[in-house]
């Protein structure tokens, strides 16, 4: 019985990578829903992290997300992923309006030596849940996206990573003079993910 409990709290590199990439998939869906990038009707509710989460039903977005999370978990397992950024741009002008920045710190020792760490599933889920709640509540302070928007995802990787066939180098798509809000972090003891949203300064404040 005791042995089982101990075994349950062990986290491996692969398991951690899976948690992080899955987290990113749900977070991206939640952002797309909450920020109204896609119509509300194209989302369905599922239960995840003890919260009602919304997932897109749109085939195009779904396959994009699936391919994306697959590649992310591969990089995470190799410890090569430094950061993932979800960029929301104006459809008309391609101006970057919001950047959702997920910085990832990988425990190098785990990657090199293949050892595992200890952290309970429950604890990680609780941390992720806090971030998801913050993402959902972010609409209260983020500026309204009152024009049609598109999104893109950037991955910051180590330089020694071979660029996969389906990926291309990109510019960082930064926002000039952004406002920033740091959200909660979570830590699998192998990957530490910091979330930060930066957005275009609302012109209303300026006047």
């Amino acid at each position: 019985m005791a042995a089982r409990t101990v075994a349950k709290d062990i986290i491996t590199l692969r398991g951690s990578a899976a948690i992080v990439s899955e987290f990113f998939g749900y977070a991206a869906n939640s952002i797309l829903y909450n920020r109204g990038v896609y119509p509300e009707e194209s989302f369905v509710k599922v239960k995840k992290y003890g919260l009602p989460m919304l997932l897109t039903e749109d085939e195009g977005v779904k396959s994009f997300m699936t391919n994306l999370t697959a590649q992310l978990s591969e990089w995470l397992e190799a410890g090569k992923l430094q950061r993932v950024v979800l960029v929301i741009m104006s459809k008309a002008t391609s101006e970057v309006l919001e950047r959702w920045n997920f910085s990832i710190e990988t425990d190098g020792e785990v990657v090199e030596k293949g050892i595992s760490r200890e952290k309970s599933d429950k604890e990680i889920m609780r941390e992720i849940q806090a971030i998801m709640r913050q993402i959902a509540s972010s609409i209260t302070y983020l500026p309204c996206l009152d024009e049609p928007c598109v999104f893109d995802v950037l991955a910051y990787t180590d330089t020694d990573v071979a660029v996969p066939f389906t990926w291309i180098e990109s510019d960082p798509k930064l926002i000039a003079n952004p406002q920033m809000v740091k959200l909660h972090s979570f830590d699998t003891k192998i990957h530490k993910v910091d979330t930060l949203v930066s957005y275009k300064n609302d012109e209303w404040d300026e006047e």
Partner: protein
Amino acid sequence: MDAGSLSSSGTLKTRSRYPLQEQFIQRKSSKENLDRFIPNRSAMDFDYAHYMLTDGNKGKENPVGNSPSREAYRKQLAESLNMNRTRILAFKNKPPAPVDLIPHELSNVLQGNNRSVKPRRFIPQTSERTLDAPDLVDDYYLNLLDWGSANVLAIALGSTVYLWDATNGSTSELVTFEDEDGPVTSVSWGPDGRHIAVGLNNSEVQLWDTASNRQLRTLRGGHSQRVGSLAWNNHILTTGGMDGRIINNDVRIRSHIVETYSGHEQEVCGLKWSASGSQLASGGNDNLLYIWDRATASSNSTTQWLHRLEDHTSAVKALAWCPFQSNLLATGGGSGDRCIKFWNTHTGACLNSIDTGSQVCSLLWNKNERELLSSHGFTQNQLTLWKYPSMVKMAELNGHTSRVLFMAQSPDGCTVASAAADETLRFWNVFGAPESASKAAPKARVEPFSNVNRIR
């Protein structure tokens, strides 16, 4: 007074005297982020904050950016510009849907999601075209207008049958009957759109080939009085006469009378086969509506009706079979009744009855939408478009100055022609264009990140 406001704004700019505004302006100028309360202590860099408060300002390297987030941004900027440390990659296949979805956001939301909410169709209130129809017989019991499948409209004016080709707008005269035979009491296109049946006041029915303007045959001997209603069912031409008889004529064979339906005691003025050709609805001046079954018809004995419906209190002329529900029939009553009634012709049950307030001369279903168009007499002489089954009035089309006796629908279902006792023929673009987009079937939802292996 002007000077005062000027000077105060001047103070604002230069000396910032007012506390509230001063703070506001300072925040702006320093680009700090003081309006946010960030409750996540663990996310705050206290060491860095301490450094900035104590030694940080000594080095004048970074005079403005003294907030943690500002510093983070600077670092991020440096990182991204410093490409030798990091590689920024973007997935080559951009998410395709937002590009397609967003511009037609509204239409996609409305149409793509199996919602019945559609953008409102514009229904023109005036007629698209008006043609003169002199000598149109003002007789409620006749059927003098029909629009064939070859897009040619036939109208009988007095003793003459005219053809109006809707594709090029040309008019031609098919035939003029002698005074002792005429006037024409009914016209009906055959299913091929080439042959037309013409019912006459002398109880004869003639078949004409409109391609060669040639008379093919005359059906006589069935009726003793004028033939006011006609209905085709493939090679069967059903005729209804003032004598109350309904006769099925097989136009291919010499002894053309194959079946007789007896039930009406007065003139048969409405006659329509259902789309499947299995049931015939007939309405008469005796206020009766009969449903006849094709399968039980026989030539020898008089055929028993399937249903005998007595609900109308006036002559039943307007009949329309529903295009999307095979056993649904709409009927309209004359000036003493004024009702549109809906019937389940399998059971004979009356499903609904609406008092329209005036004589119902004609009924047409919209082939593309669940709508019904009715034409009326006194007092408004209007065409009314109804939503089915709610029977909410969607539009009233005015224009005719006398009762609208006949209506016919174009083969594509968009345009309706109406002929009225004011001797005009009007065309209305009331039913709109057919819906082309087929709705995609909803697919089963698959758990999205299933490719990610969960080890724990």
